[in-house]
């Protein structure tokens, strides 16, 4: 009972600190940029394949490939990394809470926040995009959900492993994901957004979305890509818990 109280306190405390952190400002900028883009496009009330394709490509290539990882890394790395950089993590580590639970509390605080921001923004963009948005909303929703989960878990792993996790996660999100995700061959499977794009292109194709050249993109089947994202999420989280449970944080005091 006391452990549950400690865990729930830490979750609420972490959520409150994340909400009022610099990370919130950091993610509002790209989300607002996307909102402005959608508003300026003036999507019509009637379905047009051209507009659907444009909106889908915006969601897949800009929102899912750039904004979603930015949101996930802003909060994912800040949840533990913020305490580490502020040197307040020591106050948590000397409490009678297992380290695994500390990390899970941080994760529990971060995930709904990032999910809410990503999926809420996506819902808003779809609402503003008229008929093409209404069609796109259920199509890309599952992929965005799994991608967000995978990124949040992955960036928690960054946070517990690296001292300057935010910088490294930014480098990873902006360069590794974009570069590796675009190269032909098996290497692209190291990028989270490759699996997300596989699901999204497959979902959008029946509604008129043209997938990239399959010889270059080599998409995975939807089920395989979904399980890959779930696997990345679980694997990263378990690894993060193991690292956090065993690691000495010498730089805390």
């Amino acid at each position: 009972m006391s452990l549950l109280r400690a865990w729930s306190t830490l979750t609420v405390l972490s959520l409150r600190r994340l909400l009022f952190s610099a990370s919130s400002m950091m993610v509002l900028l790209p989300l607002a940029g996307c909102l402005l883009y959608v508003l300026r496009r003036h999507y019509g009330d009637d379905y047009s394949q051209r507009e659907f394709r444009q909106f889908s490509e915006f969601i897949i290539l800009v929102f899912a490939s750039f904004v979603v990882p930015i949101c996930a890394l802003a909060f994912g790395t800040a949840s533990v990394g913020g305490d580490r950089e502020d040197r307040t993590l020591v106050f948590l580590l000397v409490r009678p809470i297992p380290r695994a639970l500390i990390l899970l509390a941080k994760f529990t605080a971060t995930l709904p926040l990032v999910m809410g921001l990503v999926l809420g923004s996506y819902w808003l963009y779809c609402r503003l995009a008229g008929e093409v948005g209404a069609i796109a909303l259920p199509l890309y929703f599952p992929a965005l959900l799994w991608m967000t989960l995978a990124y949040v878990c992955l960036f928690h792993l960054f946070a517990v492993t690296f001292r300057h996790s935010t910088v490294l996660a930014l480098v990873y999100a902006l360069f590794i994901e974009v570069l590796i995700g675009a190269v032909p061959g098996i290497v692209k499977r190291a990028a989270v957004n490759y699996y997300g794009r596989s699901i999204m292109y497959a979902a959008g194709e029946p509604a008129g979305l043209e997938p990239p050249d399959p010889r270059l993109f080599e998409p995975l089947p939807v089920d395989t890509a979904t399980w890959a994202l779930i696997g990345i999420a679980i694997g990263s989280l378990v690894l993060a818990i193991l690292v956090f449970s065993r690691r000495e944080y010498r730089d805390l005091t």
Partner: protein
Amino acid sequence: MQRSSTPSERPELPAHHQVGERMLLSFEGVTKFYGPVIGVNNISCRIGPGITGLLGANGAGKSTIIKLASGQLRPTQGKVRIGGRNAWSTSAKSHLGYSPDVSSFYEEMTGYEFVYAMARLNGFSRAEARQRTDYVLEEVGMADRRGRRLAGCSHGMRQRIKLAQALVHDPWLLLLDEPMSGIDPGGRREINELLFRLADQGKTILVSSHILVEIEQLARSILMIARGRIIASGTLAEVRGLMKYRPLVVEIVADPVRKLAALVAEYPDVQGVEVRESSLIVRTRNPAEFFAYVGQLVCSRGIDVQRMQTLDSGADAVFDYLQQGRP
């Protein structure tokens, strides 16, 4: 009739907080490497109830010892135990209160909110946490400034808040890293009195400080660390006693001072005598026998000794001497 509790009363704690077993912090052959660099080297000691001072120069291994004891670091070799439990384990942390040397907090919170949050992280219910927070804030002298945001608190106030969060779950082991830093003399007296009270309650308190006079005033026993090793332990008097062959500098205010100078200069264990206006500065290698000799002179030669004091038996001198003797 149920008795209501006011902030000044010590709240009752759940049964699991009442520790009946050995209240010992023990290091058993503890060595800690940071890569190729050794932090502490084969340290063994048992720290029991009362206040123990941890003295050492920068890089001596003081912080490593505190971090090992608070379960932030794991020893490369040996064991660190808190009441028989591995210090790294979660169960040991129920009995541990730790005040770090850095002054970092959740700056957006008030002192009350921070200590309350720490109480909740120790598993207390809301009512218990409120009661405990009220109690410890009063204990550390922050009850009247509880609503002040931490970002606007002075260094001294932040030290008190750190102490409050370490005490909030009433642990039997307190690890305090430089707890007096930034606190004014009046505040130090208050904190000293609080620590004495806690020691009287049977708590085990390990205080690290670079201000040696503070430790001298506060600690019942001392652990001196140099280059990762314990170079001396015990009370300051015991540690001083280890230095049997080190000359002690004694100031004697006497009349006639020149006659006394001539007499003590003949004494075989006196290495040097310096005559000042109305006093002598004597260096002796056998203090106990020298003091007895001066006593005899007072009786047999009618010399009026007004004051006699050692000039270098404080912790600084002891520490400097012991460090010099280390390879």
